[in-house]
């Protein structure tokens, strides 16, 4: 095959991997990276490399399953592991994704507040618009616009450069790991992994690939798509950390939210950096708030065999519509309650996501090794060693993650 044909083939297949990667940098992702950079400077940069490798290993597997079977992940789990496993997994997925939706609405509220718009106006408005978009089935166009707006993320790259970091030091600390025996440090490094590799993303990627109908012989191109997507995600993460590390860390500015990062950047890095952070956060939050509830309803209905689809009415597809509606309405309400335990909810959502991840990965790995399903496309031996290793490490990390949440900070590592 000559180069030109290769390029044409790639363009026809590309999309799912890159899109999934962009959605991956949602409100909670941006928050985690900003906080990490402000709190520990460049010290956490190195975690991005193992995270990227793990992300690529896992998403490649999921993409391969989507290509070979043409089915979604929840579909495959239901068909091969029965109602019970599926039901419990979907229940946890629902709660965890509800938390993720809340986090995205929180990001939306915060970004609107710093742009000078009241959250009591913008959150209900946002929720209503999102809800109507799906009910009317016209969300596709909006999704495309928002995905296009993800190009804004390259703004982070600019702001990274504009903050004029010590590049020598940045690269040094990116490639040489360092550990601090400090509970906050360990927590944040795990949070970076946890926010980058999420359960619902695996479902999302596999469905988009199946939906696109990518054929087995196009698989290599699809793998490239995944590889590029994962790299983009982490390049963006890298620059968010670098920006916050260069501008905020030396002044000892501590932040807890991405919106605080935006505000803190204003006097230090200028109006431009502030806008990039605020608008990107709003965009990421809105995209997440559309896709997470919608994807959740799809996976649950697909697994349980309920009618689904954005072009259906409440009467035709009651479960689908209600899951979606409940997630949006309640997530928006939670944000509007004064003094709502937002932090608690987000922590709960991260813990549930963390608990779910090993299960999703173990199911995915055993499915991808099932000859009956995958035929000759099962994992090669070497690939299996890497995958199981990744799953093992992630499981241990998430265990730490959960334990550290359950034990008050400082009490565990001293």
């Amino acid at each position, binding site marked *: 095959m000559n180069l030109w044909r290769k390029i044409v083939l790639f363009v026809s297949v590309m999309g799912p991997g890159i899109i999934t990667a962009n959605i991956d940098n949602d409100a909670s992702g941006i928050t985690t990276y900003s906080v990490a950079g402000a709190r520990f400077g460049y010290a956490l940069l190195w975690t991005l490399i193992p995270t990227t490798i793990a992300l690529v290993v896992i998403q490649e597997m999921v993409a391969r399953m989507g290509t070979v079977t043409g089915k979604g992940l929840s*579909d495959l789990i239901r068909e091969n592991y029965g109602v019970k496993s*599926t039901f419990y997994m979907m229940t946890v997925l629902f709660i965890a994704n509800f938390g993720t939706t809340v986090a995205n609405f929180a990001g939306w509220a915060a970004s609107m507040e710093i742009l000078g718009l009241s959250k009591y106006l913008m959150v209900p408005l946002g929720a209503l618009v999102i809800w109507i978009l799906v009910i009317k089935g016209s969300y596709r166009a909006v999704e495309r616009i928002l995905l296009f707006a993800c190009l804004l993320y390259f703004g982070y790259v600019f702001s990274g450069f504009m903050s004029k970091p010590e590049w020598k030091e940045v690269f040094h600390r990116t490639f040489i790991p360092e550990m601090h025996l400090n509970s906050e440090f360990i927590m944040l490094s795990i949070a970076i992994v946890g926010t980058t590799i999420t359960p619902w993303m695996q479902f999302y990627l596999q469905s*988009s690939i*199946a939906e696109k*109908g990518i*054929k087995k012989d196009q698989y290599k191109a699809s793998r490239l798509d995944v590889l590029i997507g994962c790299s983009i995600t982490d390049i963006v993460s890298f620059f968010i950390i670098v920006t916050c590390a260069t501008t905020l860390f030396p002044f000892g500015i501590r932040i807890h939210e991405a919106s605080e990062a935006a505000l803190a950047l204003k006097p230090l890095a200028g109006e431009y950096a502030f806008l990039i952070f605020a608008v990107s956060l709003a965009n990421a939050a809105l995209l997440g708030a559309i*896709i997470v509830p919608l994807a959740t309803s799809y996976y649950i209905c697909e697994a349980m*065999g309920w009618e689904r689809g*954005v072009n259906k009415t409440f009467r035709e597809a009651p479960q689908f519509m209600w899951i979606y509606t409940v997630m949006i309405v309640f997530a928006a309400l939670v944000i509007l309650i004064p003094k709502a335990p937002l932090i608690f909810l987000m922590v709960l959502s991260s813990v549930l996501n963390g608990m779910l991840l090993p299960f999703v990965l173990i199911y995915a790995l055993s499915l991808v090794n099932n000859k009956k399903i995958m035929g000759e496309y099962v994992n090669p031996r070497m690939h299996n060693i890497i995958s199981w290793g990744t799953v093992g490490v992630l499981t241990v990390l998430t265990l730490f993650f959960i334990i550290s949440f359950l034990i008050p900070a400082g009490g565990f590592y001293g």
Partner: protein
Amino acid sequence: MPFFGELFVSEILKKPVLDPKGEELGRVKDLIVVKGEPFPMVSALIIDKKKKGFHLPWRDLNIFNKRIISSNIYGQDLLAYEFSEEDLLIARDIFDKQIVDANGAKVVRVNDVKLEGFESEAILVAIDVGMRGIMRRLGVERGGEDFMRIFRRDIPFNLISWNYLQPLGPKLSTISLTVPRQMVSELHPADIADIISQVSRREGVTFVKGLDVETAADALSELETDVQAAIITRMSAEKAADILEEMPPDEAADVLSDLPAEKAKEILENIEKDEAEDIQELLSHEEDTAGGLMTNVYIAYPPDTTVRRAIDLFKKDAEDVDTVYYIYIVDEKEKLVGVVSLRELLLASLDTKLSDIMHSKLKTVTPDVDEGEVSAIISKYNLVALPVIDHEGFMLGIVAVDDIVDRILPPAAKRKRRTV
């Protein structure tokens, strides 16, 4: 041979099977199903003892209900069972799989299977696709009923009779009935397209292969081009050719133009010669031009045809033509000279010639005209179809309004698999 009323398969899975003395032989692991008349029936139980599978034929059972299952034979007479892909097992191959409900025209997922006693056989009568089935599998059916009673509500049974089911996998097809296939053929093509768009491409192909070519062609026409291409490429060239022959040539050309060149060529070679020539001619035009949109199936008569003769011819010709509202008048060299609407034809006196009633100033386009311009002309002059002629005035085909509508409106009516 046991007689029994009815039960759900999930109610007996993992239940002990007893020998004549009441000793446990093992636990029910699965049930083997074979084709039966009229419904598929259970041929044997697979029981599981100490992680080993045993085969217990149906005729060796003594009692079979959800409380007790016992057999006529003892443990030493049981034959070991090796799980084989040849056998069709209820729990392994039917549970949790997707299946088409031909009556409701939708894809459903099997939560449970209902058996019924019929002339000493256990036959598969229905599948459970409702909440009850899920709860039963989770072991909380009773709890759910109690819970719903608080709200004075019942959990409805949601069963679909086996004779409405059209399987999606090749394996289940071996025990499918012929009734659902007929029912599927009677569905609206848009509903069939909806079903195809909801399942994986591979299942979609199995499903389309099970349809008669005419239904398959109608349903395919309702799908998005990339889905059409995905389905067609996964079929043999002969089968694909059969289906494409049933489609109007312009749609067949659209499908072919989205396929890899080799596959398209292979299929074209299998299509009947005349039809293949029509398609090939259409294929030579760019997709978003009048040439790409047009069909070369239309009604055209010579100018000296009488109205009487034209109506007779029309009655014969119109059967195979989609757009029949205009009768084009072409001279002996196939040059387009005029048009008569169907209404004008019917209202004219029978002995006039077409050349006397035709309009000779008519709107035409050349094949390279952009689709936007084509739709503008059709819209401005309120046409049902617009003739396409080459630079010398020879008639090539027509662009019908329904072909252009699909291009300028968002394709809401077309079905594409939408998961997220």
